[in-house]
């Protein structure tokens, strides 16, 4: 019996060390070799989830790089920002998408839910710190184990394929001609979320937005929150009061560039949240024009935006 336990323990130690080695060695290599360099001319960057990913066509907007990823919460944006900002001194201005769904408690699932965690953690595990890791561990330790194994496998592939340019893993601008708005309008009718007194906010996501802003400011970047166009029938817009309150309460020193009232025909949307390429091109032209006309230096950015919206909006 004692011999059995002794041999099993030795075997388990060897097995665990092997597993740890195949997880740790690629992480170490990636940490040393990874690159976060973007185009030297990109002085403007936008971070966020699928809304900006579909809205900002960076081939239209001058000196602009779309670094958004579909399904990305601020938790993962923060990991991205921590690496991109110090590696790209040419960046002067950082736009961070701040839309209504980013304050909703459902976004917590985008931080530690299996689907998003298994997608983003493999890319950012190498760069994550202890405190951030604890957040995932405390909220979903069961799925975290699975995600660590997915991350280990992806890291092995990354190392074998010599693929250390992490920027390649970022979606950026997503162009699509799809339009399924009618279907989505039907679906929106069945939304049962309570936007009333008991509406739940994602404290964690807001907390990471604060961290992103603090980090960027510490690196002397101009930071703007930005809200790209959303369809007026998007259910989550019903949380507008909470959205405005949070903006005032937590981010009063950061300017919000609000394009929510930008009107486009239904054919310019993929669905209620996202613009398709028609919408993105129209919006990007307007945004480019605003940047050229010194929107960011203006003391009254709101009226400039409203003027531009009035010019570029399309009713039918």
């Amino acid at each position: 019996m004692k011999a059995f336990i002794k041999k099993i323990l030795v075997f388990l130690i060897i097995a665990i060390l092997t597993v740890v080695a195949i997880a740790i060695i690629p992480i170490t290599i990636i940490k040393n070799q990874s690159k976060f360099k973007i185009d030297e001319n990109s002085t403007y960057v936008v971070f966020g989830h699928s809304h900006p990913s579909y809205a900002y066509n960076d081939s239209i907007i001058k000196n602009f790089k779309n670094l958004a990823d579909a399904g990305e919460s601020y938790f993962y944006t923060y990991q991205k920002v921590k690496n991109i900002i110090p590696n790209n001194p040419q960046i002067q201005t950082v736009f961070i998408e701040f839309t209504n769904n980013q304050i909703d408690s459902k976004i917590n699932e985008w931080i530690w839910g299996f689907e998003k965690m298994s997608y983003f953690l493999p890319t950012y595990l190498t760069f994550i710190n202890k405190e951030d890791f604890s957040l995932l561990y405390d909220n979903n330790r069961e799925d975290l184990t699975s995600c660590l194994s997915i991350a280990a496998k992806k890291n092995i592939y990354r190392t074998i394929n010599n693929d250390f340019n992490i920027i390649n893993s970022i979606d950026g601008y997503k162009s699509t001609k799809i339009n399924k708005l009618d279907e989505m309008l039907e679906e929106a009718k069945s939304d049962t979320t309570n936007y009333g007194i008991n509406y739940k906010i994602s404290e964690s996501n807001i907390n990471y937005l604060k961290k992103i802003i603090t980090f960027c400011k510490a690196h002397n970047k101009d930071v703007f929150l930005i809200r790209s166009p959303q369809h007026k029938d998007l259910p989550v817009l019903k949380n507008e009061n909470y959205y405005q309150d949070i903006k005032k309460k937590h981010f009063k020193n950061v300017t919000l560039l609000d394009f929510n009232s930008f009107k486009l025909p239904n054919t310019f949307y993929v669905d209620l949240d996202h613009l398709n390429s028609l919408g993105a091109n129209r919006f990007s032209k307007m945004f480019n024009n605003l940047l050229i006309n010194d929107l960011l230096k203006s003391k009254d950015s709101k009226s400039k935006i409203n003027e531009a919206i009035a010019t570029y909006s399309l009713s039918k």
Partner: protein
Amino acid sequence: MLFNSIDFAVFLPIVFILYWFVTQKNLKYQNFLIVLASYVFYGWWDWRFLSLIVFSTIVDYSIGILLSKEENNRKRIILLWCSIIVNLGFLGFFKYYNFFLDNLITAFTLFGQELNVSSLKIILPVGISFYTFQTLSYTIDVYKKKLTPTKDFIAFSAFVSFFPQLVAGPIERATNLLPQFYTKRKFEYSKAVDGLRQILWGLFKKIVIADNSARFANEFFNNYNDYGGSGLLLGAIFFTFQIYGDFSGYSDIAIGTSRLFGFNLKQNFAFPYFSRDIAEFWRRWHISLSTWFRDYLYIPLGGSRGGTSMKVRNTFIIFIVSGFWHGSNWTFIVWGLLNAIYFLPLLLMNRNRNNIGISAEGKLFAPLKDILNISVTFLLTVIAWVFFRADNISHAINYLSTIFSKSLFSIPEFSNRQLAIETLVLIVFLVVIEWLGRETQYGIEKFGFKWPRSLRLGFYILLICLIFLFIGKEQEFIYFQF
């Protein structure tokens, strides 16, 4: 508690150490620890349903004792029926109540009548189909005087609730398992090592094969309208390996765990996908259930004796009941029916026992005839599994009609192609290992025994690494729902 969970990884060593270091000197203590551990294992899921197991244990223990004292045949039959009614009553209520009610409502509606009864929100107690059949076998064997009833309540409780096989089998016969609780178990090094090896192979089958195949099977079955025939065929093949990896993996872990505690459970899967006809498949798939139905249903009904009509009737009964055992849905009944249709020609032509041995025994490669027969049997099985997996009959029919359309010859498209290819490679790996080990009890029982020891240990570490690298989202075992 799931075998593939952290909870079980902590639970098992604790029980193992207590079992061999604290209670090893006293049989009663050993058995009591097993009962206690089994109740913790089961109660981890939902402690309320422990009462069902305890009740079932008390009923069958008491009926066993009463049967041993009773000589009057009529009274003995009444006692037997008491056990059957109690056990199947629980099973019927928890598993089939809503099914019968829904079908009754539908039947009334067809005749223009409205039945104002609403279905109940019933939680199906995990493992009820398994332990019900296990305790029933005890009472039936005692009634038939094949088994002396036990007077040791703790041993009987341990037999009913034995945690390795409590929730998803193998369904052990009292004649095999119960006597093992009467003798003190002694630690055997080779048995324990063999147990661990079988657990490792079971975990590989469950975590690497079943859970990764499940991802694609779910994708194809849930969105079957979006895919062509080739994709759906691939989806059905993924499900074929999902259910095999899931269920045979569970059995391997159960048998291996039992061996760690000094028990021998019967083989539940004997490489069923290498069967050369459906009759052989049913001798190799879920053996403990097939033999249960054979001994307690098919043979009492007359078996294959009697005329052709009798054979046909009994075959249909056993396959339909077997299908219905799996779940209260018409899809399972059709699955059983389809297997009966596959099986019947072999029975009627007296060819159901043509393939008793192992294909290409003692050889590396199978003859062409065997390869052809194995392929045809596998394909028939894949088609039957579509009914098993589908949500309803029309889902299955639509799924199959898309498979057998022109799009069968198109290139399949699906998300995460890389993981799909990896999963297919791992399935091939499984098939190769199982083919090489098909003359043993489980795939890697003797695998690499001729290699240097370090190389063999390296192979086991490779399996552990594969398990680590391919852990998906923790999935319940499919058979928990049965």
